[in-house]
Each structure stands twice: as C-alpha cells, then as structure tokens.
C-alpha cells in the first residue's frame, strides 16, 4: 500500500482518470451509468477516521465491481487504520495533516494473517488452513 504524506505534491493523473466518490453515493448506479469507465483512481473519503463507510465502498468496488485501478483513502487518514484500509481494498492513502508516517510500516508487519477473509485474501483462516492441509496445533 502506498502511503503518501499530506504535503507531498501530487503527480496527478489527467482529468477524467480520477473519480472522487462520496460516502453516500449509490455505487451500483454509478457503475451502471459508466462513471468508472476510464478511471485510473478512485478516491474515497474519511470525513472523520471513525466514519467507516468507505471501507464497505472499497470492498464493493473491488469485489463486486472488479475495479482494478488505484483506490485511495483521503480525509482523516491515520496510522492505526491503514491495515484495515489495505485489507478492504485500498491501494494508497494520503495521511491526514500532521500525521507522522514513521510508525506506519510496523503496523503492516505486525500480524502475519487474520481470521476473516478480506479483499487481498478472500478465504478465512479455516479455509486457508484446510487447503494447506495444516494441522491445528494447540497453543
């Protein structure tokens, strides 16, 4: 996942290739209306970091609408939510003003895997382990 400091000047894409989608937009209608055609990057907003609607939007864009371009988190983006964002399908994030990126990387390194499936790995732990033929050992 690409982490972008707030004050980094954007090497921006041409007009028409970036689409900002509001938290209350009707995704299915946007897709049906062709709004995603030619779009290279979708920006989803976190008005505050506690507003989690964009997670669901990112999941649906990846999983249902098969959007393959960049999905970027904007707004109140903090370090401790980056892993949730990545797992929900975000591929880049612009940190909120004043957020120091130095603590970001170790958040990605902490957990090797999770219980539930996500956009990166749709299978839950039990399905992954069953496929790997793993024997669950007691702690």
């Amino acid at each position, binding site marked *: 996942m690409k982490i972008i400091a707030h004050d980094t000047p954007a090497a921006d894409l041409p007009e028409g290739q970036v689409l900002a989608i509001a938290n209350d937009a009707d995704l299915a209608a946007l897709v049906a209306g062709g709004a995603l055609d030619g779009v290279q990057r979708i920006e989803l907003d976190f008005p505050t970091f506690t507003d989690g609607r964009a997670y669901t939007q990112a999941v649906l864009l990846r*999983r249902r609408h098969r959007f393959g371009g960049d999905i970027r988190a904007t707004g109140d983006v903090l370090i401790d939510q980056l892993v*949730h*964002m990545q797992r929900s399908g975000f591929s880049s994030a612009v940190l909120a003003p004043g957020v120091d990126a130095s*603590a970001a990387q170790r958040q990605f390194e902490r957990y090797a895997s*999770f219980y539930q499936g996500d956009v990166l790995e749709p299978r*839950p732990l039990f*399905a992954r382990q069953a496929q790997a033929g793993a024997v*669950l050992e007691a*702690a």
Partner: protein
Amino acid sequence: MYQYTAFDQQFVKLRAEQFRDQIERWQRGELSDEQLLPLRLQNGWYIQRYAPMARIAVPYGEISSTQLRMLARIAREYDRPDAALLAHAQATQDALQAAQPGLQLDAPPLRYGYGHFTTRTNCQFNWIPLARAPEVMELLASVQMHGIQTSGNDIRNITCDAWEGIAEDGIVDCRPFAEITRQWSSLHPEFSFLPRKFKIAFNGAREDRAAIGWYDIGLQALKNAAGEVGFTVRVGGGMGRTPLIGAVVREFLPWEQLLNYIEAIVRVYNAYGRRDNKWKARIKMLVKAEGQGFIDAVEQEWRAITLQDGAPHTITAAEFERVAGHFVVPPLVPADRPSKVDPQGQLYQRWLKQNVRGHRLAGMKTVTLSFKRPGFAPGDADADTLDALAQLAEQFSASEARLTHEQNLLLPWVFASDLPALYEAARALGLAQPNIGLLTDMIACPGGDFCSLANARSLHIAAALTERYQDLDEIFDLGPIDIHMSGCINSCGHHHSGHIGILGVDKDGKEWYQITLGGADGSLLSGPAIGGKVVGPSFSAAEVPDVIEALLDTFRAQRLPGEFFIDALRRIGHEPFKQAANGARHPKPEALLI
C-alpha cells in the same frame, strides 16, 4: 471449553503488543487523546469518573479456573487507586450524596481490588492506571483472554444462554457458533468503525435465556423438519433511549450460512446506518425506519455474497467439527468431600430450589453462585473471592464456570452427590444466598459511582433494597421478580426488561429515578421480550425503596394464590401499581411545614 490454537494465542499476544505500541505513541504525544480513544475502546479501555475502566471479554460467559486466578491477580495487583485519587473520589461521592434530598447517610465507600461481572458477560476493573494497561493485556493474553472489541463501534463480545450445552431444554449447543463468530468478528477490517456498537447473542434452548430479542442480532437455534440445524435471525433489538425488540428477518438460516448472513446484515448497516445522531445510530433505528426495505437489502446482499463472491465464509463441516470438538463434556470426577449440611435444613432446601437446576446429563446439576449479597454491589467479586471461585470450580465443576447475564456465576458440571459439600463451601464464601430469580437477585450497572456516562448512582439503591429485603421468608413468599436498574439511558443494567425497572436520570444536578413496570427479557417467566412502561414522574433516591415496597404491597394485596408479580401486573393492569407508587412519594419539605 475452547482452547486456543497457536494462531489464536499469537493473535491475542500481537494484539497486546499493538496496544502497547499505541499507548506508548500516545504517551509520546504522537497520538492525541481523541485519536487514542477508539483504539483503547476497541481494547476495552474507558476513562471513567476517576480512573480508567478495563472491560475484559468472557466470550459467551465461559471461564476457566486458570482465567479466574488471573482475574484475581489483576484485581489484587493492578486494581488499586493511589491514596490521593481515592480520597478525591470518595470526597466527590460524599458531596454528591449530601446533595440528594432526604438522604442523610454517608455515600457507601468506593471499593477497589475487585472485578465486576456485567450483563454482557464481561468482567470490569475500575482503577487500573492506563500506563499499566499494556501489562494487564499481556497477562490476560497469557491465559487466552483479551479485551478486543468489548467497547467501540464494532462487533462486541458475543453472548449466549449460560446453560448452552448443559440445559435440559437444549436444542443446539451454540457455543461453537459463538466461537466461530467471535473469531470472524475479531479485527474485522470492514466493520471496525460502524455507526454504533453492535451486539450479537445466541440462544440454543427452547427457553430464551439470552434475551435475544434485545440484541442487534439475536440468533435462536432450531432444527427444521429434516433435523437440520439453523437459526431464526432477529435484527434490530436494543435498549437505550428507544427500546425496540428485534424483528425476525429470516425464519430459518442454515448454520453453514451464519457468517455470510451476518456479513450481509452488518454491511447494509455500515453503509446506511445513521452517523449524524448518536441516539439514532444503532441498527434498530435503520430497521425501524426502513422495515421491509431493510430486509430486502440484506437478502439481496446475502445473495450477492453467495452468488458473486462465492460465499467464502461458508462454515465448513470440518471447521464446525474442529471448534465443536472443544465443547465436549470434560472429564468428570466427583469431589466426594465430607459435609455437615443437614440435607433437610430449610436454608439448604431453599438453595436447592432456587440455585440448583437440572442438567442434560443424569446425575449432574448446574449450580448458580449468587453475587447478590449485602455489602457488595451486584456482580462484584474481590481478589480473594475470585481465587476461591477458581478453586471451587476445580473441585466441583471440572475447572469451568460461566458468567450469567444476571451477573452471577454458574458452575456447569456439578455431581448431584456433591451438592451438600458445594453448598457448604459456597456459604463459607458468602455466595449461597438462595435468591436466584428472586427480588434481591437484582441486575445493576456500576452507575454514578464509577461510570462517567451515568446520570445517577445505582449501587446505593441496590444496597438499600438488598438491606431491606433480607428476610428470606418474605422474598420466597414474593416469588420470582426481575428488578433491573441502570444509572443512565444507555441501559447497561437492562432496566427496560425488568418487571420493575429503575432508571437513573439527572435533574438540576440531583439524582432521580424513573420507575418502569412490566418489562420482559424473553424468558418463560417474563414472556416475550418487551420494554416496561413508565409509572410517572421520577422519584428521589430516598423514595425509591419505598416505591418498591408500595408496588410489592399492592401485589401482595391483590395476588391470586401462588401468582407471580409479572402475571398479577398483567392481569390487574398497571393502574393500581402506579397509584401505589405515586402514593409513596415523600412529602416535600415545604409541605411538612404547613
């Protein structure tokens, strides 16, 4: 009970490390208080009136002797305010008490060094400094415990009927499903910042003992005509300012689909639940506003998960069997300890009647230890008691115990032949009051003694009622009755579902109490879940015990032989009770002068 795999163990260990990292960044000023808030909440750490409160999950109530010993250690070594903080807190509480009309006594002393069992089978501590929080989480992780998602706007600790797998009326043991759902919901990337908290409860018996109508999702296990296991799914129950009972959105959900269907419900909620008003943000308001539209959206989302996403969270038979394999009957050995109890003694007989229930296994019983006793708040267990409980569970119940949503502790594997010795041991600990289900088996939240959300205290009301009703003949004669009290409208004390509900409200900085009548949690005794009705303007703290007395006098005067309070209330109607309650108001000081 469930034993962690190496993955589970590593997961809680990493979670504790992550929390340490967050606390350290906050201490260095890299995280603001506001930014830390949801992070600490998602690990169970609140800041209360005087100190942080830690809420530790006891998933579906199951706890081992080893875990009880760890809670004892945390109570003893960590739940300790420094002298200045305690003195300040007590002085503040004394001033609050002095400001209440008609109350002359000192405020009850604030206690420390104990755990508090909650209505949602968590265990809370009230005095642990935030700087020591990471250490506590690491200790908990070492005994397969955590505080993950015991607070915050996420999927909370999952609860079950306390008698899952041991009840005589059991249909399906829901503990494996609760554990599978616990794992699925832990650190869910999409659902960690919902509009509001989200609570799931399972019930696997004929009788609803988990209050599932009152939950965001309430799951009633059943078997269909073909003998297949599934769930009736209710969505949109909840207490708070707008008490609502969950609506049935699906009569029969095959068990394999459990996670897929919950995912559909929570996704619809996350996308459409209100975020502009905290009081309208629970899923119940969305269900209420949208009705069938909500159900249609959930069903459509579930179809998409199934047909388009390939339903990756469909529970496999292998996974179910792996988890269910943990919930087998443990090795059972009778304690065979000597006892001097007179088996015909009245107290012992009363204890057998109220605190001991049948078991699905012949020769076995379930025993509820009563945490409703004078001198202690409902559900409080100090360090020595927690240690003693660990030993009691070891001796008499295969080292297992369960927290109940009525804030007591159940021993699930007791030999009938061990009952006299267990009674004796429980009595020595002060945990053998034969009052389970009776008047003094009250539910109460910590209220304004600790909680910063509370409008009023609840513990001094509970203490006053406990003292007033110490005559066992009297409470046996009154029969089963649910008194539930909450210190504020957040309803942690489930006042809406009490036959008599007591709700703390704040007027002009003074504590007042609204009394409701006729609420039901959904049990056989109480009938289908419903919220109680307010009797009238609120009462002062000093009036509340007299109001309860007046309600009970009305019941005694009008009951049919053997009739229960809730049945008499429904037969007669609320009016005579309302009149009695309002008649118990104390004269105003100016009226006394005339």
